[in-house]
């Protein structure tokens, strides 16, 4: 997991990275930007300012013998910006839909995003449902899922988390979305499911590695090669404005917004 987050190593450096366009969606202040910041720079900012419009970041990671370059569109969470979203999720190969485990309403919003993507986005899109801010809930049960880690780093992380937890107890915020509920929903809708903490980094890299594993990389590689030769938009981060985003509403008309691709 740790090496997946590294920039491409020497062995992979001469390989052309596979470009994967990924979009982050979810209610305001669930931690979308923080999640990306953790993934891209391994940083965390308390009180990170809200995203307006959208932000774009890239990060390479290595999966087995391939190098994947994630082109990440981090979108604004406020409902009013909803109608901008199709501009960003169009042609995306992956989406991370984020909710806040301490806020039940954010899961509802996440579900509506899932519906919208399944209806309007690229039909092969890989969607990951991610419950963020697990560091806030002192519920130990929810933390045991990353048991696969035995390396030193992992152990140390686990210890630190445990210490944090003890400090947290006075301040524990009740979890509003049980892991089981979200996980069951994800399974029935065919989504990947994770719980993460952008604050302490728990589970973040996993989200992206699992997405990378599930994406049909070979397919993208061949199609993007073809697309490049043909000069049509391929899988790069460009946003296609010509095909419909032009006249799109920024506000209102949330349901009608977007076009079928």
């Amino acid at each position, binding site marked *: 997991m740790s090496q997946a987050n590294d920039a491409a190593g020497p062995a992979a450096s001469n390989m052309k990275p596979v470009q994967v366009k990924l979009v982050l969606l979810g209610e305001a*202040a669930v931690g979308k930007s923080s999640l990306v910041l953790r993934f891209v720079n391994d940083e965390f900012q308390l009180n990170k*300012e*809200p995203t*307006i419009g959208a932000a774009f970041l*890239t990060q390479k990671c290595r999966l087995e013998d391939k190098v994947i370059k994630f082109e990440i569109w981090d979108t604004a969470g406020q409902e009013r910006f909803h109608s901008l979203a199709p*501009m960003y999720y169009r042609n995306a190969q992956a989406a991370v839909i984020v909710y806040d485990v301490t806020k039940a309403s954010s899961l509802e919003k996440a579900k509506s995003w899932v519906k919208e993507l399944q209806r309007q986005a690229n039909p092969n899109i890989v969607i990951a449902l991610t419950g963020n801010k697990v560091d806030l809930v002192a519920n130990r049960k929810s933390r045991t899922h990353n048991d696969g880690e035995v390396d030193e780093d992992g152990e140390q992380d686990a210890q630190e988390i445990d210490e944090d937890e003890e*400090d947290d107890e006075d301040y524990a915020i009740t979890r509003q979305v049980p892991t089981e509920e979200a996980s069951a929903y994800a399974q029935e809708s065919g989504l990947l499911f994770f719980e993460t903490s952008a604050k302490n980094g728990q589970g973040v890299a996993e989200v992206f590695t699992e997405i990378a594993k599930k994406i049909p990389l070979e397919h993208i590689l061949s199609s993007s090669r073809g697309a490049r030769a043909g000069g049509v938009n391929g899988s790069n981060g460009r946003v296609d404005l010509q095909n419909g985003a*032009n006249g799109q509403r920024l506000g209102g008309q949330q349901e009608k917004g977007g076009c079928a691709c």
Partner: protein
Amino acid sequence: MATFATCPDLHRHPSTHLAGLAAISFCAKDNVDDELHGVPPATSYIFGQSQFLKSLSHPNLCEYLDVIKGKRDRLFVIQEHYNNSLGLIRSTQESDEKEGALKGQGLSQIRSWAAQILDGLVYLNTHGIAHRTLTLSNVLLNESGTIKLSNHGLYNMTKGGSLVQFSIGDPHYLSPNTLGQNYTSGLQDYSADVWSVGVVLTEMFLGESFWRKDRLDLDELISSLFAIRRLSTKSRSWILDCPESIGVNPVVLSFLQSGSLAHQEGASFKEEESELQNFATFLRECLSLGESNSREAGQMRRHDFFKSYDLAHGISEPLSEPALKLWHEKPYIQSSFLPDYEGEVERLRKVISEGKDLADDLEADGQVPNPCGILSKLPLSQVFYLWKLAGGDVEAQFRRNGRLVGTPAIQLLPKVVQIAESSAGGSREERSSVRDIADLFSDMTCVLPLENLEAEILKSIHEPNKDQFSWDTDYFLFSDPDEMNFLQGTMGENMSKGKGAGSSSSNSGEDGFLYPDSMRFTPGTPNGAASKLSSGLATGFQPLAQQPTKTRVKVPLSIREKDLGYQYQRLAMFTDLLLQYPASRAEILHHSKIDIPPLLRGKVWAAILGVVGDYQQVYSDFDKYTEKSTDHQIELDVPRCHQYNQLMFSPSGHEKMKRLLKCWVEANEHLVYWQGLDSCCAPFLTLNFNNEALAFSCIQKFLPKYLKDMFLHDNSKVIHEYLAVFRHLLSYHDPELSSHLDHIRFIPQLYAISWFMTLFTHIFPLDKIYHLWDKILVGPSSLPLFVGIAILQQFRQELLRSEFNEAIGIFSESFPEMDIEKCIETALAMCRVTPPSTCWLSYDQESRKMRRQLSSGGEGGAGATVGAANGETMPFSQNGSLVHGEAPSSTNATSNKTTDQQQPQQESSRRSRDLELEKRLSGGLGLGQGPHGGVNWWEEPLSIETMNEELAPRIHRSDFVRLRQQALVIDIRPESE
């Protein structure tokens, strides 16, 4: 009357003596553990809370000037200061006593002090503040003997001491009721201060300490206080039943009980018996405890004891504020009290012109040397600001005075203690026992030296080349007279209109925003009383006409802002102008185009925006407390808004921001809260932190001008039009860059929404925003578009090399470092040479106004006018294209038509206001109606789709006339036409 006439921070002091400045310093509680869980740090709470203290202004209170956060949890609180205090009087008395002099003070003196102390306390109480640290040394006296209470905010700003490691108040003066009392904000016990007043007055009157001198041990004192409290629950008056064993000084006790000074020998007190009795009753009431007996300062002030004082001072009723209300009723009258400043300036001038040292000059003139002549009348906040500019550093001052000397670091290292093997552990750290002595509280004040400040200011003004200094950075001068300048033409019209009597200030919106010609409108030109005053003030100012434009050297803003002499002059001028606002609005606008003194920025902005009337009332009339659906989003955003800023980070900053946003939502029913609005409001809040109402009024003026309709529920049309115009303007000014960006599909929708929706507040930190907005506020409403282009141009080379990913990478996440001043300059230069019609937005008022003006020139005749001017007979809907530079945009020439956009979109008539405007417009357009009764095809607004398809802007015929001489026109109409 004048909007800012009652603002204490603009007021000159009537006294001729300069008040001193002093600082106290203490450390806030270290609550690192809590901070990890989102509890704001104590320093931040204190910092935010103490801002309010700066707004307090009363003749009997020392002014709070600033709170500075030092390293770690240290805070420096800067206050007005006087060397004389009751404590000092007492101690000189004590030394005199040994020589057999009189003890204590006369009753009339005591009465006057008592009245003033209580007046100060009443004012504090009405503002929700309990003093709680009233001691002899906190009651200061100025040079004319007026009482000035000090340190009155310490209790309030530290949440009753709960945010610091020390307890607040001296137990000798502390009411027994305060023992074990917890601080609950809003429910403060003001009666505790009255006890302190009683003790203070007793001591001053009798010249004896309240408590027995041999019993000053703290433990005993505290137990005495407890004993008094117990006693007061049992008896009606603890004073009458007080046993010897309670440590009250017997002399004091006997006076309090009897009201007579039996033991006093001789004629030291000639007061009438009844007066003495009266005073003793007053003191007994001050010192009474228990719920039924305790008094607040207001009640005590109405005591019979003060009858003679009030009579002598002509006070019949306690002072109230309705008189102040009158100030707002007629806002357009010049302020009635102009400070006598000109005399001061004359003196200053003399000093400068004679080129003498200040001291020599004063001696030569035979004047009494007054060390702080030019400073004594300045508002203290400005004195402190200038002191800092002159290199003053509060923390360094403390160190120079030998304070804050810490325990050497080596002694703070954790001690490792070996524990005997028999006990369970091995070695352990002992950390808690060592504390840095610098962290301990000291109530010593550190006086800030002001002696040399005046000399420094004069020296700075007197430095060579300063004559040019003040004028040499007029951004709004046009460097090349041959250069095409679209602002000049429109400005001419505007100025002539503005010169109509009275219209310059009553027409609060636009006029004067369009670059007045400095040649015609210099500060030397009298424009009512205001300009006469300022021309007298500004020693370095000369009419611009005398200075050749091209030889001017630009002094960067950052240097001007740090220049002591320059800032002194600017502050003096703006203070005067602000006091006379709104009469002086035109002048403020003019001078603001050069620069704005940072200290007065909040009010200057308000003046530029044209805030008038009783804004306090307007703000308080809106409901800011009922829950609304947007609350949730506001709650989420406020704690994330510009948190690097101390004010925005503080809990009181969060509260204020929430109130402000809620008020905005309430006041603008047709608009909605979009994320980003919080960022837009932040500059106004931080500049007017103690004046939410003013901040709100600024926002209400600002948003309609620069972000009109950007916060509509459905703003897509507004924002897409804005971005389309932005893209066109970029093509106009930098075709190469524009076509490259278009080629890599780096479109404004992907990066510039947050730029324009928040007018750059989302991408720049506040210190940069202040400078950026300084210019945007005095510029045309299209200026932000050019700022956007200027930003792109600063990264031109990089962008031209970039593919999409790299290009967007430049502006994503953390915004790159930018030279704001250069950016503004570029933007203004572009704005100057841009045909105004290319920046027209269908929702923008200024554009509408211009279109209206153009169309009212006679729609039917317009074509003919154009034709005549050109010597051609072509109708004005001719095809043409502007070629600018090596413009690849000429490839788009086919779609470039000089098309009319006079008619605002018909479908945009969402609101009644729009409808009304349109009615008026179409009324004026009667002649312009097409043959089918509809609108001519060239008058129809462009759809956003069309705008997005075209790379370059279309130009209105009115601009075309002027552009023609410098543009290559290609007629691409088919032969048949």
